[in-house]
């Protein structure tokens, strides 16, 4: 099967400078691909060239064998490309339910909309439990869950996630990374950017390293995690595998930990 998304020699930037200097990346359908790299290397910019928020100066973006360079963001949305940006994107004064409904703004079929809403709420129950509260009163992690739920209303083919775990507590992070796996298991393709690189790669089939606007390395998520050079350059020190970093003989260990 040909890749669902092909980014070929893409050069893009804002104003005079180029952030992307010839990015090449292919994404297979149904997989999760994680883009990692230093701050300012162009990860978010790659996502923008796919969703249409930024047009490449050179190079092509091909989605399902169709070149989409000249398509508007809305046209790409209708093709099934959804972009969840890094900044919080909920309408803070609107309640959670209305925010979710906004995800279905393009849908005219009410019955279909209801089905999609139910599906989204099943995946992210917070949309029901906090439905009537203003989205702005939710914490960062709670808002991210509503944002992910909102993407499901459009039943997307390709989901672009820009740092989904940012600002989330450890529990919510687990929920979000598990949700990403769920999205993939339902046949969706996910391209995500993560600075929380170890967790991002662990949740992904493939990983790509972006540095100074060029993809330096593409490999399976697992093999990037095990590569000592990648660890030194991009992942930092490994977290301790045991929950205790400084074991003390006198420290009572909790035995009631449940998840």
């Amino acid at each position, binding site marked *: 099967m040909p890749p669902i998304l092909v980014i070929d020699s893409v050069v893009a930037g804002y104003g005079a400078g180029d952030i992307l200097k010839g990015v090449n990346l292919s994404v297979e359908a149904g997989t999760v691909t994680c883009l990692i790299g230093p701050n300012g290397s162009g990860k978010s910019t790659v996502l923008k060239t796919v969703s249409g928020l930024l047009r490449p100066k050179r190079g092509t973006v091909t989605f399902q064998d169709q070149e989409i360079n000249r398509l508007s963001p809305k046209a790409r949305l209708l093709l099934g490309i959804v972009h969840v940006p890094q900044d919080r994107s909920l309408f803070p004064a609107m309640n959670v339910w209305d925010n979710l409904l906004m995800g279905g703004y393009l849908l005219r079929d009410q019955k279909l909309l209801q089905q999609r809403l139910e599906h989204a709420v099943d995946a992210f129950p917070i949309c029901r439990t906090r439905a009537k509260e203003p989205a702005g009163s939710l914490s960062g992690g709670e808002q991210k869950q509503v944002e992910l739920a909102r993407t499901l209303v459009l039943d997307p083919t390709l989901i672009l996630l820009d740092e989904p775990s940012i600002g989330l507590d450890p529990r919510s992070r687990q929920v979000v990374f598990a949700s990403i796996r769920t999205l993939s298991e339902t046949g969706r393709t996910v391209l995500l950017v993560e600075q929380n690189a170890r967790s991002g790669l662990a949740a992904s089939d493939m990983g790509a390293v972006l540095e100074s606007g060029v993809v330096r390395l593409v490999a399976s998520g697992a093999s990037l995690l095990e590569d000592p050079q990648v660890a030194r350059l*991009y992942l930092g020190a490994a977290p301790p595998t045991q929950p205790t970093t400084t074991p003390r003989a006198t420290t009572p260990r*909790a035995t*009631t930990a449940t998840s």
Partner: protein
Amino acid sequence: MTDLLSVHDVTKVFGGVRAVDGASLSVEEGTITALIGPNGSGKTTLFNIITGYLKADAGRVEFAGRDVTGSDPGRLYREGLSRTFQQARVFPQLTVQENLVVAGGYGWRKLFSSRVGNEDRERAASLLEEFRLDRVADLFASELSYGQRKLLEFAAVLMSAPRLVLLDEPTAGVNPVLIETMERHVRERNAAGITFLIVEHDMTFVMRLCDPVIVLDAGRPIFTGEPSVVQNNALVLDAYLGS
């Protein structure tokens, strides 16, 4: 050691939500104290109250032995209390380098009338290099990525000489390798006498760097202790860390 900061019975209600609910805590001078807790437990609201960005409905805040409840952020800053934000706040229409100059504590008149001292210039240059912002030093801060803004805001705090620094999720969006650089700077500044209170979800960072750790849940502290004890406390595991 004495408490540099103490919070007494502070409450803040938004609509029907008690974001901070009778919280009391203290930060001992010379420590790197962590404030952790689930999303929505009130950490940032507490930061906003301590630093004067929000008025508490009830309770008291003391800094350096003085009651500073309701003081404005500017005054607290001049008294030695500075902070960073979850969504980094930098001056978008100043260059990266200029942001550091401003943070160096020069009054705005001086920005026009005199030169920046050599020592500060060198300090700024070395911070820019360490946080890999040197190649974007002359860009407007508005052109930086989210992570780069976080790094710039962090570097800006290091340019000033506060007594207490409150960091709100400093590592969010920052490359893991640079998180280690951040860590080193916090240690160095701490050794030079600056006290830190850090809100952070990166437990590896917290466990390596912070002592004590205060755990907040539903608007009030539920546990305070050494990192290793906190990490093994059943209450904390249940409220925050998960499996």
